[in-house]
């Protein structure tokens, strides 16, 4: 049976969404996939272009071994099969930003085969999404049509830059899942250091395949593997944010359901997403589709990997988000939600782990997720720009644990640190915020309050709830610095309550 939450209501009944994503992730590498030219972002037009990238006569591609290593690392991070034998093919088509007249890609024999990842949704549910394959390919250059009224310009800086295309299975069943999957892929590659995930710079983008089918048909597809149970899909190209992925799925599903319910049909076509309107529109239909004439690139030998080399990479992989999330829950006692939030981003996770190192995990998590993330959010800052370094936040927590300051004072110190930086210990000293643990001093305060408020003292024995009033008065009198535990004990003793 179809799960109810995956159903979309139409005018004529329920529908199911089926989504597959092709994520293009730029390999983090100094040089391009087949030429020694720099692959760095932000150079002037056509500055990062070698004779190979510009496809001069007689130029030949030479595979960048580091990009291969990065692809293998990513494949391992996706729990996928590494193909020890793979091959590069030419995908032939004409376009001015494709100087060779073909893109070198991997068609039949990709470097990485099937895998699977776990994707957490906002409600905490975890869904599993299959990976069909990952292959290496060259990026194209960029055509610029709006610089001059009658001319187009071409920037070949991206021409030849290494991309990993990560293809999911049609396992994604909603806009939320699509967004969460895309986000999870980004998390994984950033953890691995194989792609910086920077979508504004074009380091990551997705082609979003969407189809709809009548409720129950997806299960038939799963049972039989027969794609005819699914609807005709459209492919929306170059979607470059998590939010847009969600919008594309939502829009396409609605559009397709409406079209089908009003007696129309869905064309298998390539579509473009309009960021301004949130709509998709036809880019080219199946009839206009290229015949890419794939064939193995005769300039390159098949890529053969050594199993021992792959094992070495596997052994050097960092802890991945799923492992980290589990460890945070199991070893550090974090809530599932906090563990998810903290493990979703390697920088955040690393920050948290520095704070939590040798300290109470739960307390550290509270300070990082509540106080720090709250403050960062309010200030519009990323964790990378945090005014408070992780070791300083750790120190602040130590001051609480050691009884030097109370949790309440700590929040004031935190605010100062966030505002103007600085060492928490020094702030506490300079501002005289050290907690009063000297029982003599506290006794003096308590004695004064008892002496000044005989009526309340008389009351407190019958109404134990008024005890809090004494705590408040005493704390106020101490300027908030009285050690709460010591204060409590002294008050209880002097007032004769339990």
């Amino acid at each position: 049976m179809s799960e109810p939450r995956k159903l979309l209501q139409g005018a004529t009944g329920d529908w199911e969404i089926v989504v597959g994503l092709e994520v293009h992730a730029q390999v983090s590498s100094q040089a391009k996939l087949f030429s020694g030219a720099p692959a760095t972002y932000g150079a002037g037009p056509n500055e990062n272009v070698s004779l190979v990238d510009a496809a001069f006569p007689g130029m030949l591609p030479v595979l960048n071994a580091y990009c291969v290593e990065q692809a293998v690392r990513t494949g391992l991070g996706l729990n996928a099969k590494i193909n020890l034998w793979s091959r590069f093919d030419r995908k032939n088509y004409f376009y001015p930003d494709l100087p060779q007249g073909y893109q070198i890609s991997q068609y039949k024999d990709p470097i990485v085969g099937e895998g699977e990842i776990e994707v957490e949704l906002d409600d905490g549910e975890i869904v599993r999404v299959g990976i069909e394959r990952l292959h290496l390919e060259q990026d194209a250059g960029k055509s610029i049509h709006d610089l001059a009224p009658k001319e187009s310009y071409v920037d070949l800086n991206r021409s030849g830059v290494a991309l990993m295309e990560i293809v999911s299975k049609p396992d994604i069943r909603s806009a939320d899942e699509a967004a969460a999957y895309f986000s999870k892929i980004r998390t994984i590659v950033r953890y691995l250091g194989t792609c910086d995930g920077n979508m504004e710079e074009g380091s990551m983008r997705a082609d979003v395949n969407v189809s709809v089918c009548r409720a129950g048909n997806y299960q038939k597809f799963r049972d039989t593997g027969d794609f005819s149970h699914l609807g005709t899909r459209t492919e929306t190209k170059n979607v470059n944010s998590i939010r847009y992925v969600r919008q594309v799925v939502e829009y396409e599903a609605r559009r397709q359901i409406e079209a089908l319910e009003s007696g129309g049909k869905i064309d298998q076509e390539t579509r473009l997403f309009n960021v301004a309107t949130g709509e998709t529109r036809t880019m080219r239909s199946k009839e206009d589709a290229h015949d890419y004439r794939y064939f193995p690139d005769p300039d390159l030998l098949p890529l053969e990997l050594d199993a021992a080399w792959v094992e070495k990479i596997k052994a050097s992989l960092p802890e991945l988000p799923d492992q980290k999330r589990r460890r945070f829950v199991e070893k550090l006692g974090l809530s599932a939600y906090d563990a998810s939030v903290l493990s979703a981003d390697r920088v955040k996770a690393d920050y948290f782990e520095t704070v939590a190192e040798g300290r109470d995990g739960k307390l550290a998590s509270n300070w990082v997720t509540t106080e720090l993330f709250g403050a960062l959010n309010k200030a519009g800052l990323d964790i990378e720009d945090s005014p408070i370094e992780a070791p300083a936040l750790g120190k602040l927590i130590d001051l609480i644990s050691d009884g030097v300051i109370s949790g309440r004072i700590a929040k004031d110190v935190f605010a100062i640190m966030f505002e103007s930086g600085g060492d928490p210990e020094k702030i506490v000293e300079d501002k005289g915020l050290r907690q009063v643990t000297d029982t003599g001093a506290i006794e003096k305060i308590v004695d004064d309050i008892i002496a000044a408020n005989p009526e309340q003292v008389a009351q407190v024995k019958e109404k134990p709830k008024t005890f809090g009033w004494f705590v408040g008065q005493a704390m106020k009198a101490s300027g908030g610095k009285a050690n709460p535990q010591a204060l409590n004990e002294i008050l209880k003793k002097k007032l004769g309550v339990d």
Partner: protein
Amino acid sequence: MSSAVDLSLAELRDALKAKKVSSREATDAYLARIDKAGALNAYVTVTAEKARAMADASDAKLAKGEGGPLEGAPLGIKDLFCTEGVQSTAGSRMLKGFLPPYESTVTSQLWRDGAVMLGKLNMDEFAMGSSNETSYFGNVVNPWRRTDGGNADLTPGGSSGGSSAATAARLCAAATGTDTGGSIRQPASVTGTVGVKPTYGRCSRWGIVAFASSLDQAGPIARDVRDCAIMLKSMAGHDPKDSTSIDRPVPDYEAAVGASVKGLKIGVPREYRLDGMPSEIEELWAKGVDWLRDAGCEILDISLPLTKYALPVYYIVAPAEASSNLARYDGVRYGHRASEFKDIKSLYENTRAEGFGDEVKRRILIGTYVLSAGYYDAYYLRAQKVRKRIFDEFVDAFTKVDLILTPSTPSAAFGLGEKSDDPVQMYLNDVFTVTGNLAGLPGGSVPAGLDGQGLPLGLQLLARPFDEETLFKGMAAIEKAAGPQGRPTDWWTS
């Protein structure tokens, strides 16, 4: 002493070293001959100034007793090799005026070893042709003529027709060529010169305009076997810029020339006996067998039954790769660009319609067709499977023999225009040579005699991959047994 141009490359090298002649003298002598050889149309570009400067530099080195193995030797370079700052056309209008900002690996190794560049040699457009008639710069004329007195202009072969004609007519001491289906061996055969296609991967393809990447291989055309050995030594070697080039040491090929062939096993494949092949070719082949037997070789009849599929396989694989390799000529970044266009599509269409000749267009169309969806499996994939089996068949044959002896071409030089209307007839010229490309084997053509019309005929030897030394041994044995074949007259001198 005779003129410097009459010396073989080896003789010239020795004379230069002994200071009996200067590189400048030799270079000037060649340039003077080139100047008068317009009728042959062998050169697309003559780099006289550069040649003299290089010769002077070589003489300075030679004077100090220095210099590389080719120091001061004037060479012609097939126009498929990109040469820095020197027009490199590939015989095509598409690359007319193209000045590469880089030097091909093979030519840079020649200059490293001291050679002097006389200029760039004419060729079939993008190396597609067997008669030199597809060149945008006009056909080359073979310096050899029939003895029938008809004075018909004959083909110098192709695609390295400029290289073969220039070598035969003493317009260079030796030349570079490239061989994708026979483009070194066939022109060498019909011009009485020696041509060697080394093992695929032996010479770097970097900087050579690509025709069919899995088949293209550079090699020398020279006056004798020793000269080819000297040339190949400089041309060969591993190049990290070409992923298909092989990293293994380059032997001293010259040392193999003249070495004994005693005990070598020579295979004679019965499938290379074609219906309708001129009896003269058949007789020459038999003579070759006798010569090698007399020299102490053991002759074995062998069978290569897949030979008949070689040409069809070649004419699927080569155009397929070419259709993709030539996609880069789009008029956007370099080379010819149509003056009339209204959008990007018409820019492509008009540029390519104007820039490519008919034979190139034909092969792009064939190649595009065989790679198309729905045809790929039936043509390209099947051809690759047969190609693998042809390779296996040779591997098997080479467990029994050391060399394989065949004719180089099914006929002597034919008249220009005789076959240009019939592509299939033209393609048949490569029938004995394409197998070597499909299997990646080293092969060479050596002059073995003249036909009834006084035209040169060649015999081909094929060897195991990277066994060029045995190839040179065998070729030198045939050369020695055949004796001098004479040379064409300078009828073309203007």
